[in-house]
Every structure is written in C-alpha cells, then in structure tokens.
C-alpha cells in the first residue's frame, strides 16, 4: 500500500500539511537531542560528546530495519522509494566541502534552523551563510555544470554497488553502529576528563 502519496492514496492537497507536520517532529527531535547547540554537535569531532553519532546511527538503523520489515509485510513497495542518485566525484567534493563547513560552522542546515528558533545568533549567521553559499553555487553553475553532472551512476543502492542484498547492508550497519556506540563511549569517558573548556549551554 505504501508509499501513500506516490500511490495516490493520499492526494496532493495534503502534501504541505504533511510536510509541515513532519518538519515539526523533525525539528523537535533535533532540538530535544541537543542539536541547537553547535558545541554539542562538534563534540563528535573532538571526542567530548558523541551525541551526533548516536542519534544519526540509531536513526539510520531503525529506518533501514523498518523499511525492510514494511517491505516484507507488503506494506511498502521499496521500488517506489526515491533513491538519491549517485554522482560519485561531485558528491565526494561536495561532502568534503560540507565536512569543512561542519567543523568551521558547527551546524548543518537542519540543526541551524533549530538554533535560530531558540535564539542563537551563530545559527542565524550560519543560515545566512547557507543562503550565500547556495547563491554562489547557483551563479557559478555555468562554470561547473559539466563537473556537477559528471560521474553519474544513477539510482544505485549500497547493496547493488557491493553486490549484496539490502538485508546484508542493514546487518552491516547494525554491527557498525554497535561497534561505534561502544568505541565512542570509551573515547568519550577518557576525553571528558581532560576537556575543561566545554560547558553545556
């Protein structure tokens, strides 16, 4: 039966109501988890707070298992899901630039909106930066259009790339997540003893 909107079970008028609702839940979870604070977020890079990794990996694993379960029960048609297309080199370059922006800016777009919501001036400036960055990209698009569209691999899944099933990929992520939770818990305990300049805001 799912996904509901692509199958026409829920009609287009509900689109934006659903968008707003999903966004409210998303923003609530991000803020309640502590992502409206840049120093909480960047803790993941310095070892004093791995909350980003915990939330992120748990969410990925829950969604993956859920999708497989829904597919098994016949509740969702996985073929109708939007699989983000892969443009290998542009995505590697884009993600590298984003990683740099992450460490320097301390937010990512979604988390910066929640920072704006509770009155963080640094989040407001970060969001303005996003606007400027996307504007610079848009204006330089004619120069980089070739690169932007290069290395297209289509809607390839992780399983298709490695020649394994979605189930194996999910199992791999579960193992990876458990190992990461355990390893970062040990690191965090040690680092928190030495980091003195950090106070939760």
């Amino acid at each position, binding site marked *: 039966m799912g*996904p*509901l*909107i*692509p199958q026409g079970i829920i009609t287009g008028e509900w689109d934006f109501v659903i968008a707003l609702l*999903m*966004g*409210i839940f*998303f923003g609530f*979870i991000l*803020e*309640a*988890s*502590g992502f409206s604070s840049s*120093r*909480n977020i960047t*803790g993941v890079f310095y070892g004093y707070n791995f909350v980003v990794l915990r*939330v992120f990996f*748990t*969410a*990925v694993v*829950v*969604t993956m298992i859920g999708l497989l379960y829904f597919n098994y029960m016949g509740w*969702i048609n996985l073929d*109708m*899901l939007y699989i983000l297309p892969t443009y290998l080199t*542009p*995505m590697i370059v884009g*993600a590298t630039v*984003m*990683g*740099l*922006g*992450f*460490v*320097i*800016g*301390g*937010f*990512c*777009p*979604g988390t910066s*909106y929640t920072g*704006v919501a509770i009155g963080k*001036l*640094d989040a407001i400036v970060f969001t303005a*930066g*996003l606007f400027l*960055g996307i504007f*610079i*990209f*848009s204006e330089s*698009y004619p120069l980089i*259009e070739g690169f932007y569209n290069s290395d297209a691999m289509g*809607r390839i*899944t992780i399983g*298709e790339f490695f020649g394994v099933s979605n189930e194996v990929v999910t199992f791999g992520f579960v193992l990876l997540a458990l190992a990461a939770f355990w390893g970062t818990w040990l690191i965090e305990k040690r680092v928190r003893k030495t*980091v003195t300049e*950090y*106070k939760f*805001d």
Partner: protein
Amino acid sequence: MNTEIQSKNMPRYINPYFGGVLLGLLLLATFFITGRGLGASGAVKSAVVTTVDRVAHEHTEGSTFYSKFLTDNHSPMYSWMVFESLGIFLGGLISGILFGRLKKLRTEHSPKITSKTRLIAAGIGGILFGFGSQLGRGCSSGAALSGTAAFSFGGLIVMLFMFGTGYLVAYFFRKLWI
C-alpha cells in the same frame, strides 16, 4: 571538568538513543507517506531561486540552473521542502520552549575565542555547507541521513566523506570549540 558541576549544569536533553529511535521512526513514516526522506538545504535553495528571480527575472530565465526550479504556476517557495523546513523551525521552537532553552539572542562559543570570531566562523561554515550541499545533492539530512537510510550509495558516500573530512580537519580548528 568537575563532574558535580557538570551534572548540575546539564541541560535536559533527551537520551540520544531515544532521540535516534524517534528520528528513525519519523524518517520511516516520511518514506511510508511520501516515498522520500527528510531534508533541509532544499528550502534555502528555494529561497535563493525566489530572491534572484524577483531581482533579476531575465537572468534566472536564461540560467540553466535557476530555470530548473521555475514554473509559471507558482513560486519556488511553494514546495514540500520549504514547508518542511518551516516545520523544523517550529518544532525546534516548541522543544526550546518546553525545555526552557528559548532565550534572548546569544552567541555560543568556546571561552578561547570571542563572539565575533565565532560569528565569522559560523558565516564561513554556512557558505561552505551551502555550496557543498548543492554538489552533494543534499546535506546531512537529505543525503547523508535520508539517502543512506534508503540504501542510496551516494548517501553513504556523502556521509563518509562529510564526517571523514570533519575528523581530518578538526585538529586545525580545535580552538573554535575546545
């Protein structure tokens, strides 16, 4: 850090694994209803396209990039991502009010740097993130989280290289944070 002081000052954040389960269930519900995941940078793109279109309509019509997002029917702001991002703001606001974190304008920064340094860094970081999100076909929400969770290879690539770069360069920017 003194653990007693730390626990007294601890803000009331929810357990990260609980937050992760909630986020995972929300993402699953979003896929079940819409067939796509969550995102965040798309709304700013819509805002950029709308602004430039208002200021210089001929420029956007002639551009192969802007024209992709322009239709005669409605504004680029009339999109799923814009409404969803408005929701992110509202959801953050509700959580901030509930947990007592909604306060007057302030800048959070390491005691080693000034507010001004922090704001400059935030601006530069935002510019880089905005630019990168276009090449990456999405940010941490749209590509790294939603992409990977829907088994996209590109999503995994964005996740690995975003966090990988973060760890590689973190040392050079440590004064901003610790």
